[in-house]
């Protein structure tokens, strides 16, 4: 136990370990997607799996997202449990029909007679100058459309635990992992992208937010990179005598409304931070929740920090301008407590 506790893994290794353990247990689980074999997934989500399971269960596909994601739907309806990778979430547009009209709706349209136990995993996020077509998170694009669970874990521990839950779930799950939180050697190195991960399989529930740090003065809600930035911000705020509470959303659908409302009851102030576009995004839904169900608890207007409704620009100064970061969170939080 001592040893297990001390084992450190990067996000991507935690993720691929979850897949490995479920594949060992259940022969219906298999992986398909572009470059998931020899390459191990562009962002390392299937690292080492081809070697262990061979090309029959770790299947490289042509660049045909409609066909292979649709095939995952068909295979799931016949009792398999596919994990299918959409390399970048930004590519959803070539295959969204399979995702939202079929994967998400067939269980409902069939009155529950068809189950689709599948995981669509996909990489999200920017910050490394990959420009407008490779840097988005699109959390709410998926969250808005009913019928799929949509999760976005932050830490290696949660990546493994939530992937295990996702694979075992009988519902379609969209599993978004953040590129920078995979802990890959060729990207920014962040503390958050490496962490304690038990060796054995374990589950973390889908649909529960996590209070990363308790506080009394202001509630900061983030997910993935904005949770990471939130952690930095919380420390800086502490230095300035502000005791912020930080919530890591982890799941977009189901959304853990209760945890957020409880926090507002305590802090009376809400700042929502998101790497997705602002309008109609995560910050909108959570601010709306506060207006709908937490209004009497609020002592100041809700603040929303997100991409200001422009495509992600390539050049560094502009990209940094549109992305949230710790400093911007600190600034907004201070304004909020002084309101």
């Amino acid at each position, binding site marked *: 136990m001592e040893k297990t506790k001390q084992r450190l893994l990067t996000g991507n290794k935690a993720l691929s370990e979850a897949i490995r353990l479920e594949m060992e247990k259940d022969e219906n689980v298999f992986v398909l997607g572009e470059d998931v074999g020899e390459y191990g997934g562009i962002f390392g989500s299937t690292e080492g799996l081809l070697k262990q399971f061979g090309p029959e269960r770790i299947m490289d596909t042509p660049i045909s997202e409609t*066909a292979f994601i*649709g095939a995952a739907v068909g295979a799931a309806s*016949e009792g398999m449990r596919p994990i299918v990778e959409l390399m970048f979430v930004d590519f959803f547009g070539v295959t969204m029909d399979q995702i939202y009209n079929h994967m998400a709706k067939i269980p409902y349209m*069939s*009155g529950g007679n068809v189950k689709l136990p599948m995981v669509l995993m996909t990489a999200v996020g920017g910050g490394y100058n990959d420009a407008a077509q490779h840097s988005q998170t699109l959390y709410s694009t998926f969250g808005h459309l009913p019928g799929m669970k949509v999760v976005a874990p932050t830490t290696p521990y949660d990546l493994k635990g939530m992937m295990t839950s996702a694979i075992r779930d009988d519902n379609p799950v969209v599993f978004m992992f953040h590129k920078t939180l995979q802990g890959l050697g060729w990207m920014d190195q962040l503390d958050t992208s490496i962490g304690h991960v038990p060796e054995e399989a374990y589950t973390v529930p889908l649909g529960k937010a996590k209070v990363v740090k308790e506080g009394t003065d202001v509630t900061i809600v983030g997910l993935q990179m904005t949770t990471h930035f939130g952690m930095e911000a919380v420390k800086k705020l502490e230095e300035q005598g502000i005791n912020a509470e930080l919530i890591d959303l982890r799941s977009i659908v189901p959304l853990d409304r209760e945890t957020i409302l409880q926090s507002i009851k305590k802090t009376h102030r809400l700042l929502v931070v998101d790497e997705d576009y602002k309008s109609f995004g995560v910050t909108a839904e959570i601010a709306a929740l506060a207006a709908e169900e937490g209004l009497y608890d609020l002592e100041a207007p809700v603040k929303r920090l997100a991409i200001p409704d422009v495509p992600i620009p390539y050049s560094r100064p502009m990209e940094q301008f549109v992305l949230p970061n710790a400093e911007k969170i600190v600034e907004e939080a201070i304004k909020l407590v002084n309101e």
Partner: protein
Amino acid sequence: MTISNEELNWMYETMYKIRYYEDKMVEAYAEGKNPVFNIGAGTVPGEMHLATGQEPAAAGISIHLKKDDIVSSPHRPHHHAIAKGVNLNKMTAEIFGKETGLGKGKGGHMHLFDPEVHFSCGGIVGAGIPHAVGAALAAKKKNKDSVAVAFIGEGAANQGAFHESLNLAALWNLPFIIVVENNKYGISVPKSHSTSIPSNDLRASAYGVKGYYVKDNDPIAMYEVSGEAVERARNGEGPSIIEIETYRYLGHFQGDAEVYRDENEVTELREKDPIKLLREKLISDYNIEESEITAMESRAIKDVDHAYAFARESDYPKPEAALEDLFD
């Protein structure tokens, strides 16, 4: 491949049943839409795409399919469903929006799912093709000898999903067959305005698969090429494309004013109706007794009438049931 009398009878009865089913649906759909047609009104609301005239495609391949074989069908699904042996009561109840329906009333006529016989359909053109590819993959993974068939219209063959799916199925050598029902139109657009080549079996060489073409809406020719394609698929010899020339007697959907085609077109088509022709052939070429034929017809009518009665007598779902079946 020569067809046995038993097979002929099955084909005839199935086609007859489909035809009778669709005829009844024309009536049911019209109920409550008089004197003014309103798509959202009446016993059966919403869009209604019927397959009257297209029976040979469904019967000619389904005769070769077993319960475990998979069928994926598009927005015009009744003939495929009936030929595949979908539960007729539950299917009809679903179309009537009843809680006893296949999808408890949530799906409707374009969204029929009967996992018992591995049947599904959907309203997005081309989208069912990859589902069949995936089902074929699952069959292969499970070491079953099942075959997956995707039916599409000729219009759907110009969707990207067609290309991606055929390449994938060929690459992985899956037991997959695509049947293109060329009924000449995609809604109002004639094939010559949608497709740059004469027929889709010619696209087989683009994937290294086998291509077949069936002329004249001929059920027996369809039986023959399908038999070969299914056998090849079962034997691991890979996918096929079958295009069949067929006819859509009715509008694209019920209520279609059909401004885009000549009034006489359908009258002429009905003269060479494949069910009528097959009936004549059964008697003249295969020595099947008239009495045997009428017995089949009565049986078909009885089954269908029973299904409609079941649907009519069933209850509507409770409004709040809308909130159920989202997640398991």
